[in-house]
C-alpha cells in the first residue's frame, strides 16, 4: 500500500496533507488526467462576447481554446487547433471575426467551426469534408451559470448545475449585484508563480494569513485617512460540496457595491445609498445586506477563484509543472456603474490584489517559499490544515474551506490504495 496523501482524523481534530502532493511529477500527471480532464473548468464571462462574431482565445488547463459568439449569436468553444496538422488557428488574443484561417496551409473555418475553404480541395477524396472531418473540434461540453462559462473535456460528466452544487448560491450573489448585469473590465493580469497550483487554491481562501502576510496592507488602510469603517473582521467558512468552498465575513475596508468609506465622500455615499436601496427593493433586506456588507472568497473546484472583497476578482490558474503555475486574473464590475464607482473599484482592486498590489506580491513570496520548503518533504513530510476542525461552525480564519478542497482532490487523485 502506498502512503496516504492526506490524513483526515476527525476524532483527534487533525488534518494533514503530504508535501509530496506539491512536488511529485507523478502526482502532477495524475492531476492532469484525473482532475483537469474530468472537471468543469472556467473559460470566460458572458460579457467578453457581447456581440456576434466576437472572440477571445484562452488557455484552459494548458489547452488552447477559441471562445466565440457566432454569426448566429450562439456561444461556442473550440480547440484552437487545426484539424489538418495541429497548428494554432487563431493567434490573436481577441477581436471580431466571421472566419478563422490557419496560417499553415490556409484552411478557413467559419466562426461556427465548420470548414469554409479547403485549399487544394480537388486533390482530396470527394467525401473528405464529410462527418465534420475538417471542422474545428468543439470542446465536449460548454455551459454557463450566472454569466460564467465553463468547459469540460470529459464527454460523460454531470450537468454543470449539479457539479457547482452549493457554489451556485454564491455565484448568484456575485451575478445579481446589479440588474444591468456584471462585466469583465478590460485588461488582464497575466502572471505566473514558481509554486504548485494548489498553494494558490489554499491562499485564495485563507483568512488566517492576513494579519501576518498582509501586515503592510493593514498598516496602509490604517494610515490612509477615511479608508476604513468600524466593521470588525468576522465570519464563517462553508463547505459547498464537490470540493467548492467559501469564507464569508465582514471587514473594515470599503466595498464598491455598497459598503461606504469616508474617503469616497458625500457624493459617493449618496450613490451607494441609492445602490443599496435598489438591492433591498430587488432582493429583500437580508440578501441585500449579505451582498453589500459581507466579503466572500470562493474556490470552485479545481481552479477558479472568485473573490468578492474590496473589489471582485475572477482568477483562474493551471499548473505547467509541479512547481509552476500560470494565472489569469480579471476584475469584474457592475455594467451600469458610474465612472466614479468604476474608478474606485479599480483603485480598490489594485491596492490589494495583483502583481503590483500591496498584498499579492507577499502572497507570491510566501507560496514560493512553501515550494522551497517542500523540497525537504522526505524529512518534513506533512502540511497541517487542522485549524477549526473541532469547531461546530468554523470561523473564516479557520481551515474548513481548504479541507473541503483537499478531500475532493484526494477523492479524485488518489488510487484505492492511497486513500
Amino acid at each position, binding site marked *: 500500500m502506498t502512503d496516504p496523501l492526506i490524513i483526515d482524523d476527525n476524532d483527534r481534530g487533525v488534518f494533514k496533507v503530504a508535501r509530496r502532493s506539491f512536488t511529485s511529477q507523478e502526482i502532477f500527471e495524475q492531476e492532469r488526467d484525473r482532475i483537469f480532464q474530468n472537471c468543469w473548468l472556467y473559460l470566460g464571462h458572458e460579457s467578453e462576447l457581447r456581440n456576434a462574431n466576437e472572440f477571445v482565445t484562452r488557455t484552459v488547463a494548458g489547452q488552447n481554446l477559441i471562445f466565440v459568439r457566432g454569426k448566429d449569436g450562439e456561444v461556442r468553444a473550440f480547440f484552437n487547433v487545426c484539424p489538418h496538422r495541429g497548428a494554432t488557428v487563431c493567434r490573436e488574443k481577441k477581436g471580431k471575426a466571421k472566419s478563422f484561417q490557419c496560417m499553415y496551409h490556409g484552411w478557413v473555418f467559419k466562426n461556427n467551426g465548420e470548414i469554409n475553404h479547403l485549399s487544394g480541395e480537388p486533390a482530396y477524396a470527394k467525401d473528405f469534408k464529410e462527418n465534420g472531418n475538417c471542422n474545428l473540434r468543439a470542446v465536449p461540453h460548454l455551459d454557463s451559470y450566472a454569466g460564467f462559462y465553463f468547459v469540460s473535456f470529459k464527454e460523460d460528466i454531470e450537468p454543470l448545475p449539479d457539479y457547482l452544487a452549493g457554489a451556485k448560491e454564491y455565484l448568484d450573489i456575485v451575478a445579481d449585484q446589479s440588474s444591468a448585469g456584471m462585466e469583465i473590465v*478590460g485588461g488582464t493580469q497575466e502572471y505566473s508563480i514558481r509554486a504548485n497550483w494548489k498553494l494558490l487554491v489554499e491562499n485564495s481562501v485563507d483568512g488566517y494569513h492576513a494579519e501576518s502576510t498582509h501586515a503592510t496592507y493593514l*498598516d496602509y488602510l490604517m494610515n490612509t485617512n477615511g479608508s476604513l469603517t468600524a466593521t470588525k473582521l468576522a465570519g464563517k467558512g462553508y463547505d459547498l460540496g464537490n470540493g467548492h468552498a467559501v469564507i464569508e465575513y465582514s471587514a473594515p475596508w470599503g466595498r464598491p457595491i455598497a459598503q461606504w468609506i469616508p474617503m469616497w465622500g458625500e457624493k459617493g455615499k449618496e450613490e451607494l445609498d441609492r445602490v443599496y436601496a435598489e438591492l433591498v427593493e430587488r432582493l429583500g433586506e437580508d440578501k441585500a445586506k449579505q451582498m453589500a456588507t459581507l466579503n466572500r472568497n470562493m474556490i470552485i473546484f479545481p481552479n477558479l477563484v472568485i473573490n468578492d472583497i474590496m473589489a471582485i476578482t475572477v482568477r483562474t490558474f493551471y499548473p505547467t509543472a509541479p512547481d509552476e503555475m500560470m494565472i489569469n486574473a480579471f476584475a469584474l464590475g457592475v455594467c451600469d456603474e458610474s465612472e466614479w464607482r468604476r474608478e474606485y473599484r*479599480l483603485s480598490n482592486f489594485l491596492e490589494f490584489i495583483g502583481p503590483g498590489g500591496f498584498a499579492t506580491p*507577499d502572497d507570491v513570496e510566501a507560496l514560493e517559499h512553501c515550494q*522551497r520548503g517542500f523540497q525537504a518533504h522526505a524529512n518534513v513530510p506533512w502540511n497541517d490544515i487542522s485549524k477549526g476542525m473541532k469547531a461546530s461552525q468554523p470561523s473564516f480564519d479557520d481551515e474548513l474551506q481548504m479541507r473541503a478542497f483537499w478531500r475532493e482532490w484526494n477523492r479524485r487523485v488518489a488510487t484505492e490504495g492511497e486513500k
Partner: protein
Amino acid sequence: MKITATQESLLRYFQIQQLLFHEAQLLDSWRLNEWLDLFTEDGGYFVPPTDVSAEEADPAKHLYYIADNRARLEERVIRLDKRTCHAEFPRSKVQHLVSNILLESDNGTEVGVSAGFVVYRTKNGHTDTFIGHYRYLLREVEGELKIVKKTCNLALDGLRPQAKISIIL
C-alpha cells in the same frame, strides 16, 4: 520628426538624461524617499496591462498592474522600507538600464520624454527581467525638472515568469 539641436535643446536633453539616470541610481540603491522627491505633489506612477495597447490604456477604465496617485505612491515607498514587506525582505538586488531617451515635446514648462528600459531584479537565486518603455511627463518647478507622470509600458506578454512587480520599475 524633425531633429533640431539648438544649444537650448541640448541643455534640456542633458538635464533630462541626468534626471533619468539619477532616478535609476536612486531606485537601484533603494533610496526611495529621495526618489519620491523627484515627483511633483500631483505626481503619479503607472504600469498598464500588457493586453491593452499603450494608446488605449486608461486606469479609470482598465485593470492596470499599478496605478498610483501621489498618496498611494507615498504609501508604496513606506511599504517598501518595511521588514513586513515580505516580497522585498530581504531586499532584492536591482539594476535599471535606461536608454533610447527621446525628447518628444517641450513647451518650456512641461516636457514629454520617452525612453527604453531593462530592469533586472534578483532574489532567491532567480533573476527576473522587466523590459519596456517609459513615458514621462516632466514639469519645471522652481527651475528643477520634476516627474508629473511616469508610465512603464511593458514589452512583455504578462508577468511570466516575473510573477510580480514588487520593486519600482
